[in-house]
């Protein structure tokens, strides 16, 4: 059990170049599962490897349970990691893979056996203990990697995209298993993924990174409802939020041939900027019978319970929208639809900086 604190921690691969991780400050509370999420190159894996002790910390501090670990080698940090490739030892059986960290620490044989058996039982690996990794399926290998981490009973779990090598169905199943296991063991966990669905479903809190910088660190619902900038707004949510650069008109902005009103605080903080970036989630757009902005449908994605309509404005080909429609929609490709915007659900961002207006 421990709290993990990144205190302005940086990783600079080549002096003078942009840091891979730039002054990251972030506190993971005891027992919490925090997800680091971002596109590739955002520094999320580097941040995890810094915590793991596989990358040096070039500036700032990193504390685990109050202890500064900048100069502590990874084996003495009391952490365990699940690698994206699982990094199982191919010449060893499942049993020996899971017992390896215990053996390396000179734990007595009886205790090794107790812990390995217990972990194998939790993970449903008991009947595979004699097998070599190559004789296991992807999901089983993933569980062995988990087992090797939990036998250690470490203070912190680190997980580097542990689900990315699984097929879609297995991924959903394992996602729930990991979250359940983490709740049950109550061990502080830092989890890296590029998949925002994983981040939203698993994280107690989610840190969104971009170009080595922390964008926002909040609970999933907070990220969804109050993204601090246009990047987070576009990254979280699937399909992504519609982000439109719109010209000011009257008390709001003009979308096609309709006015979308903006709240007073938003107008004030936008000042006299001529355009504002408007963010509207697909579910906050609705189909109407008459009024609303006219758009031509390009693609219909039918998901059963709902559908997503990809459309462009009737009088502006370059402006595209994603609208959530009902399941079994009758709308077809090429049809013109009228879309109504819920003004209460509109997010507004500065067109130049992308920062949220009047948060």
């Amino acid at each position, binding site marked *: 059990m421990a709290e993990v604190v990144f205190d302005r921690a940086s990783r600079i691969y080549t002096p003078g170049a942009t840091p891979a991780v730039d002054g990251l400050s972030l506190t993971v509370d005891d027992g919490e599962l925090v997800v680091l999420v971002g596109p590739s190159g955002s520094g999320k894996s580097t941040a995890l490897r810094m915590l*793991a*002790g*596989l990358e040096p910390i070039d500036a700032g501090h990193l504390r685990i349970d109050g202890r500064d670990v900048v100069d502590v*080698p*990874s*084996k003495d940090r009391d*952490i*365990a*990691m699940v*690698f*994206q*490739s699982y*990094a*199982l*030892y*191919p*010449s*060893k059986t499942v049993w020996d893979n899971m017992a*390896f*960290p215990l053996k*390396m*620490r000179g734990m007595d044989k009886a205790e090794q056996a107790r812990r390995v058996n217990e972990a194998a039982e939790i993970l449903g690996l008991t009947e595979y203990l004699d097998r*070599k*990794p*190559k004789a296991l399926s992807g999901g089983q290998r993933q569980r062995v990697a988990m087992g*090797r981490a939990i036998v*250690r009973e470490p203070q912190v779990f680190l997980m580097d995209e542990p689900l990315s090598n699984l097929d879609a169905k297995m991924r959903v199943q394992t996602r729930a298993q990991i979250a359940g296991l983490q709740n049950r063991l109550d061990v502080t966990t830092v989890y890296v993924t590029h998949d925002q669905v994983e981040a939203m479903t698993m994280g107690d809190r989610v840190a969104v990174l971009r170009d080595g910088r922390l964008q926002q660190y909040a609970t999933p619902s907070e990220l969804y409802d109050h993204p601090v900038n246009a990047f987070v707004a576009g990254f979280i949510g699937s399909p992504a939020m519609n982000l439109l650069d719109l010209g000011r008109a009257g008390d709001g902005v003009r979308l096609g041939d309709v006015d979308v009103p903006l709240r007073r605080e938003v107008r004030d903080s936008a000042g006299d900027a001529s355009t504002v970036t408007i963010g509207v989630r697909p579910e906050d757009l609705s189909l109407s019978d008459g009024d609303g902005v006219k758009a031509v449908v390009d693609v219909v994605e039918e998901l059963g319970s709902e559908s997503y309509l990809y459309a462009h404005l009737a009088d502006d080909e370059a402006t595209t929208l994603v609208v959530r429609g009902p399941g079994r929609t009758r709308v077809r490709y090429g049809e013109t639809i009228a879309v109504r915007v819920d003004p209460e659900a509109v997010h507004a961002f500065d067109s130049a900086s992308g920062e949220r207006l009047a948060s």
Partner: protein
Amino acid sequence: MRRAPLLPALVFTIIVTQIPFLLTIFYSLQSWNLVRPGSQQWVWFDNYVSVFQDSQFRGVALNTVIMTLGSVLIAVVLGLVLALLLNRHFVGRGVVRTLLVTPFLITPVAAALLWKTTLLDPTYGLVNFVLSPFGVGEEAWISDFPLASVMVALIWQWTPFMMLLLLAGLQSMPTDQIEAARMDGAGAWAIFRELTLPHLRRFIELGTVLGAIYLVNTFDAVYMITQGGPGTASANLPFYIYQRAFLGFDIGQSAAMGVVVVVMTIIVATFALRLVFRSFGAAEGSH
């Protein structure tokens, strides 16, 4: 019919390998010494009987085993050490690697000559020169340790081959396994013993088999350095057969020895190759 264009190659291969082998068997059943014209006559298996009764042949066979296995195993160990050293970053690694590979690129005859004259000569040799501060005088390495002298030249030539093979093996090792082991608390020695060696096993097996297949046929080093002497102290089977055939002109005896050696080599090589194919085949299955 699709394979018909390959027929000339097949015919050629049969002509240059199988027909000489049949002729060798034919000669091995005869008593025929070239210096006594008219001595050619059928003796059937007498030559084989005398091959197995020949204590020199047994001594030479033992020399061959020592020379082949000893050289290969020592070359593997040295190659492994060098490969481990080369598998880390340091300034000038490319130059060092090239220098370490050069012995393998030298013509075996030239290498043998170099060892015989420049390095191991009792009076002018560099080895004695370097060792002279340690009280080594004009040691005649080649006459006192003939078999070891030949082996030193062979090991010097074959260590780079083993080094390259094992270096390729080391570089194919996934780094995340090593990172995982480091986080699991394994030290450098434990990582080497528990992960690196098992990973390198198939490369070591391959190097050993390839090296042994090549070195069992060594002729040039023996011929250049010791001529198999003193007596037959450093002779191996190819050299001994050469001596009996082209210095003693005993065609029947040497043909019989040749057949015996071919049969033994096929048996050993079959088992060794099967071992290698099995461990590479098993490893393929994991990816």
